[in-house]
């Protein structure tokens, strides 16, 4: 007769522990990439609407076609800038980020 080392309940707890550890490790591994994605999305918005802080931008014929699809991205960039209470510097700093 096979000896039961752990009860079913304990096995579930151990499984949950390892699963939690795996998720935590995955999140840790993806946190930097996640940050980069957010930065790149802001850079994308800035490439389109950078003239708000005096940066050269694509011709209006390009930006106007994309504007209706970019409202959320644009809002996020503006929100990020407003949270620092130094909007221009924050927006400009996006270009310098990795």
């Amino acid at each position: 007769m096979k000896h039961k080392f752990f009860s079913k309940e304990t096995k579930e707890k151990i499984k949950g522990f390892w699963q939690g550890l795996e998720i935590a490790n995955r999140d840790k591994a993806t946190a930097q990439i996640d940050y980069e994605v957010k930065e790149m999305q802001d850079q994308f918005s800035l490439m389109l609407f950078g003239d708000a802080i005096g940066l050269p931008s694509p011709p209006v014929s390009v930006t106007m076609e994309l504007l209706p699809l970019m409202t959320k991205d644009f809002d996020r960039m503006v929100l990020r800038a407003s949270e620092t209470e130094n909007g221009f510097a924050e927006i400009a700093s996006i270009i310098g980020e990795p």
Partner: protein
Amino acid sequence: MSKYKIFIGKGGVGKSTCSSLCAVNLIPDYKKISLISMDPAHNLHDIFACELNRKPKKVFDNLWVNEADLPRKQREYIKTIKNTIAGVYHYQQSLNLEKYYSILKYAPGTEEYASLLVLEEQFNDKTFDFHVIDTPPTALTLKTLALPQVNLHWINALTDMRKEILDKKNTIAKIKKLNLAKIEDDQVYLRLQNMKKRYEKLNSLLSDTNITQIIVVLNEDELSLSETNLIKGQLDDLKLTISRIVINKSEDNKEWKTKVQNLFPDTFIESVPLQKSSIIGEESLKKLCHFVK
């Protein structure tokens, strides 16, 4: 497939006269010919001695002529901007935006985009076999011809960025064992691709010398020769070829012809002799049209 001849050159050299002569010369060989003036200071109505407007008018035989209303096109374009902004920023509808739009027409880029829209209309119009286009003075024309490439430059850079964002998102999705995103589902990417197709088409139509011929008009004077040289440099940068040179109001000065030939050794050069009076009306145009082929 329709064909196109675009006449460019310094203001006052006689682009309208040469493009009119060229259009009349095409009459026996094509079923339906269109001649359009994109110059805000139109003078085709003087050359054809009749009233013209933005709609093509049959002047004689199988030749239709019109004078594009660039300010109107610009207004229409600004209206689309206004509608876009109103659609995006609903809350601004209570504000008086009219005041702002009245100065939008002076915004950089709107004039050449309106001009490009008129040019694009010509390329999309299949009702004519041949389109002869009389352009505005050099600066605006060069900006208009460059716009598809300028826009493509930005569109390609933005597309690459969009792809990179998606790649990174998918890296995260793979690690987290989530569903992968498809680039085709990205609305911004799709819009960029549509824009790319449009400007690539315009650019290929402009670059294909079997479809579009760019003809530069000049006079026997240093200023117009110097501007022609400038045009050549800028068109070279855009990889657009000058198919012909027309020396208008020529006094058959051999020294000048050699000068121009040295500058454009591989380009066909033709001359329109200086006339005692202005070239106006059907009879005079038909008599002299063989000078501009």
